[in-house]
């Protein structure tokens, strides 16, 4: 049975794993990429690095890989540079690409490798809506190949570049995700009572604001309860979403934050002062915790 979960490191992957990794820029990606591919060397897999960039640019991402020239010379590592023309991207034959991938895996096995370890930086591939939709179809095909062939795949994207809606689509088609632990957790405890935990910062602003904006529409009574005892961190933009929530329900009720940590109460007072319709109950003398 294939793994389907949140992972917190770019290693520990086996054949048939297909992971989506949200990185924070080129330097972060290169470190992740090196770790992922080096594991493939240990597991006697052929390495493939694919992307829409030109070959020279793909090489730049591999600088941290030891003996890069040797790996390329022996074809232990291959670079797949897709056509860089954005108009061509949407016209690629997805099925043909998937079939090629399956053949490449079979060829690697015939040469004595245990499989193919494929990494791909997909930020540019998601740049346009049409491209993103086409890419989703490709990822589904890739996932089918990963399920049936000796293939392990990591797709990386820049979290600050790709829009949240596109990210959500990509998450849906990747069984393994490398960034879910950073996202805040919102779930219902009962009527008009929600639990908010985790961390709210630049990585999760958009999704958090959307979630907060949705709550008034499902509110039944005149008090919306938010248990925030499990909230590990929230920044000013996140507080702004809470303030907006209070403003949205102010005409019919209020929002009550239960067990807010003292640092949150202080931060709210410093940045927004007293907010009409937002009540804090039982502030706890608790420090910021789990800062990662």
């Amino acid at each position, binding site marked *: 049975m294939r793994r389907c979960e949140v992972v917190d490191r770019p290693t520990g992957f086996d054949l048939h794993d297909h992971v989506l990794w949200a990185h924070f820029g080129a330097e972060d990606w290169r470190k992740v990429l090196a770790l992922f591919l080096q594991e493939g060397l240990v597991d006697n897999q052929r390495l493939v690095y694919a992307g829409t960039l030109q070959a020279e640019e793909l090489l730049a991402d591999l600088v941290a890989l030891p003996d890069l020239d040797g790996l390329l010379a022996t074809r232990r590592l291959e670079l797949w540079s897709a056509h860089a023309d954005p108009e061509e991207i949407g016209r690629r034959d997805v099925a043909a690409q998937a079939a090629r991938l399956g053949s490449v895996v079979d060829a690697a096995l015939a040469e004595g490798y245990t499989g193919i370890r494929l990494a791909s930086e997909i930020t540019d591939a998601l740049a346009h809506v049409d491209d993103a939709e086409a890419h989703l179809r490709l990822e589904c095909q890739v996932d089918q190949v990963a399920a049936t062939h000796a293939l392990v795949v990591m797709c990386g994207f820049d979290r600050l570049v790709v829009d949240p809606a596109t990210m959500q689509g990509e998450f849906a088609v990747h069984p393994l995700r490398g960034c879910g632990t950073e996202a805040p957790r919102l779930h219902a405890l009962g009527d008009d009572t929600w639990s908010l935990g985790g961390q709210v*910062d630049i990585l999760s602003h958009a999704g958090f604001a959307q979630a907060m904006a949705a709550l008034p529409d499902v509110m039944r009574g005149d008090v919306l309860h938010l248990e925030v005892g499990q909230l590990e961190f929230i920044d*000013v933009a996140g507080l702004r979403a809470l303030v907006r929530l209070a403003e949205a329900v102010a005409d019919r009720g209020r929002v009550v934050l239960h067990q807010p940590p003292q640092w949150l109460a202080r931060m709210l007072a410093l940045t927004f002062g007293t907010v009409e319709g937002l009540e804090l109950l039982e502030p706890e003398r608790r420090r910021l915790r789990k800062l990662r």
Partner: protein
Amino acid sequence: MTAPGQQPVFRHDAGFFSSPEETVTAVVPFLDEAVERGIPAYVRLEDDLAAMVRERLAEPEAVGFVEGASLANPLRAVRAMNDAAIGVVDAGVEEVRLVGCVPRASLGSKHGWEQWARYEAALNHIYAGIPLWGLCCYSTPPPAHVRADVLATHTGVLDDGGRWQPSEEYVDPASWIAARALTSVELLDEGAPAFELADPNPGRAREAVARLATDAGLGAERVDDLVLAVNEVVTNGFLHGSRPVTLRGWSDHEGVLLTVEDHGAGIDDDFAGMMPPRHDDRTLGGRGVRLARMCSDLVTFRRNPDSFTVRLAVVLP
């Protein structure tokens, strides 16, 4: 003093006194005259001075007293002043008077005075054009360097004859801030950093800051404050600056310094974040920088040829 009918503008005067008694003798007529002319008047002094003033006023109930706790730090003092006085100005009043002071304990502290000195300069920018007449009282003779800073950051000074005269040493706030030397804690970046993170994952950035501040000996609440402050500045670097955004940290026996550098144009207002947002303004703009200022001791901006750096410093007690 403004004559009846004369249009007041922002005045930021300073008085040097030898004792609390001498201070009270000078400021009470200033306040009594305001009350007599129907000008709103406020007092924001340390508690002992405030009590002495209250006792000597002709109509103490007509003067607003802002609690001494607002002097905990300069930004809190500005906020208290805003809450008390600027709201009245917004209502159309043509003049407001305020008697205030800097905590006497800060005058002998290198970093403590530096916070207040910058605040004194900032007031000339923040309240320019506001019909507020502020009178800052230095009720004990300050050290020479403090006196020099006061003369440069106040538009007027009380002379030996008890008359208010323009300060010949006054420097406009932008020039003053631009020329102001950094403190020793702010210059920790002349050495090798304890850590350096390029385009850091924000969670990892917060962790690094917390570890540095804790190891340096800051108390739990100050560590949390610094984490909140740095997170906002790093976020601003990503959202409004240009990557790479680099976070660096240093510490020594005096304090902790964090710098956030990006390659964008940066903030062009050296006083950004010093003015509290209006109560009815629920937008986000500027609140991150303000939080950074509220949660740090010293925040400075430096524009380099191809980058912009925010320094956040916290001084060890």
